[in-house]
């Protein structure tokens, strides 16, 4: 799952990025509202983490601008402002959730998953299709009831495909979800991950649609 972190404090941004990566998220980090606008226009993010106390243009301004454009981008506000008035204002401005500093990174990860889930209209962390089940919270995957071990990238690709069974996802769109800025991406990286997934879950589970991309198999 790819996240956009908008945070001007260097140390905080670094520490949060490290923790979220450990949770299997791909995190792009910008330090100003202006950079966040550029990032939002170039890539698709499952959730945006927004600090309110940004220099120059504030997080509130960015938040209300995004909502004014009818952009449904899931947004979690992260801030040191704990006054009830600020929390209410943040939510009323269109934030999906609110996290006050300091916080536990596990809690933030759970909030990110919850917001991401709701944004695609799901209600549970459990995804199931055919013989395969996967849990977003524990990263457990089973096939025919037996546990399967996946790497973080494999998990991310599987999650993307299983979230919309039947939808075809292009290689570029999968790459976009998997890799943040600055990540080295080999040209055949997605193909390699798909190959490994088929080995673990069976050849028929993921189908290739020639010239377009990949989708979950229909008759399983």
């Amino acid at each position: 799952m790819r996240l956009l972190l908008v945070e001007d404090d260097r140390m905080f941004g670094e520490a949060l990025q490290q923790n979220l990566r450990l949770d299997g998220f791909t995190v792009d980090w910008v330090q100003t509202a202006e950079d966040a606008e550029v990032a939002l226009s170039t890539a698709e993010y499952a959730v945006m983490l927004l600090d309110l106390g940004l220099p120059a243009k504030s997080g509130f301004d960015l938040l209300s601008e995004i909502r004014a454009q009818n952009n449904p981008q899931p947004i979690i506000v992260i801030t040191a402002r704990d006054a009830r008035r600020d929390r209410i204002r943040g939510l009323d401005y269109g934030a999906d959730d609110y996290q006050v500093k300091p916080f536990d990174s596990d809690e933030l990860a759970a909030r990110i998953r919850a917001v991401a889930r709701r944004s695609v209209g799901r209600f549970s962390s459990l995804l199931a299709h055919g013989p395969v089940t996967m849990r977003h919270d524990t990263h457990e995957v089973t096939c025919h009831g037996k546990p399967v071990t996946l790497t973080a990238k494999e998990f991310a690709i599987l999650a993307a495909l299983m979230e919309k069974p039947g939808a075809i996802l292009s290689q570029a769109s999968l790459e976009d979800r998997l890799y943040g800025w600055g990540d080295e991406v080999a040209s055949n990286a997605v193909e390699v991950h798909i190959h490994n997934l088929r080995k673990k879950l069976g050849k028929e589970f993921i189908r290739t649609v020639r010239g377009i991309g990949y989708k979950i198999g229909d008759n399983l």
Partner: protein
Amino acid sequence: MKSIRGLLFTALLTGLIAAVALTGMSVYLRVLHELDVVFDYQLKEVAYAATMAHPDQLLLPLPSDSASYEREARLAVQIWKGDQLVYASNPKRPIPKQRQGLTTLYLDDRQPVMGWRVYTLYSKDKMIQVSQPLEARREVGIGMAWRSVRPLIVAAGFLVVLVLVSVSYGLRGLKRVASDISSRSATSLDPIEEAGLPREVVPLVHRINDLLNHLGHAFDAQHRFIADAAHELRTPLAVIQLQAQFLERNTDEKERAEAHRQLKGGVRRASHMVGQLLALARLEPEMGGSADEHLSLDDEAGEVVFDLKPLAEANGVNLALDTDTAWMIGDPEALRALIYNLVDNAIRYTPAGGTVAVTVRPSGVNALLQVTDTGPGIPPAERERVFERFYRLPGTSAGGSGLGLAIVKSALDKLNGTIALSAGEHGNGLKVTVSLPRAGEEPTEAPESG
């Protein structure tokens, strides 16, 4: 405590009593003089009347006896023929024979008050003598004086009541102010309503409102400071929490070592923030406790440079010191905080290979401290705002507290100094010029002779 009402009551009563007494006395004295004339005339009239009356008639009570005025006059008539007293209207009044005319007579030396006024008239064969006790005259005088003073006393009573009532009415404003103040909570600093108060009370309430206003500003500043401080401490604490968590979750030894280093940095930053907050709080004017000591600006600058040498070396910054002797009077802690934060800031914002120069020069009535660096400088538009608490220049995230220059400003206020920010040499970097009032050299103790 003195009561305004009590004071007024006493003053008014004393004044009124004095007025009544004076009026009564002056009426009495004047009336007494006039009464003498009137009564003397009456004495003569009675005496003449007696000469014309038949002696038998005189045995009858005097016709005027029934009249109260006459009774008060207490006249007595004696008639002699030759040496024999033939008639006395009041036998209990043995006035001896006097010579012709008006006489004032004191029969009893021991009682000089008990005097008599006597008119003696020789007429052919008779001698008629009419007498009146002086006491009677005084009594009439006192009666008249009393009657003239009585309405005054009644008026004075009314006056006292009227004044006391109106004072109470006037003091209602004060009572309202008092109940206004006593009914409010300890934190309410709203001004007291000034409308409808007596003019004499308005200045007092006005002063109180000024004080409340002043206190309100101080409280607001304090609240803002605490809110800001709490807010600013959250981020360093959040960093530490995330770093600690990362260290706990990560199993990669190499990454753990790096995380450990970062955690130390996070803790250092949080403690720096706390230290700066405390420094700023100590410099608050409300904290008081300013010591006025004789200080050597060059020595203090030298010490700060010595302390910050390791930081400069760690950052690869060349730290230069050039001082002349300059004395000043002020709070040593404030001066140290001032110099330390200026030099510390300069070192932090100067890239490796740069130079930070500290100079001290006496200049007229001032002592000048200059800190010049080769860092990015501060744009002219930002040179006011950088002194605000927690204001950081956009684009700088050196992990500073955002308090350094706020501390500098508070210290300057305490030391009565001024500060000017300008571009450094060739328009690069930042030149900070601090101007402090200069003092004479510290009086060194004279060497003991002998």
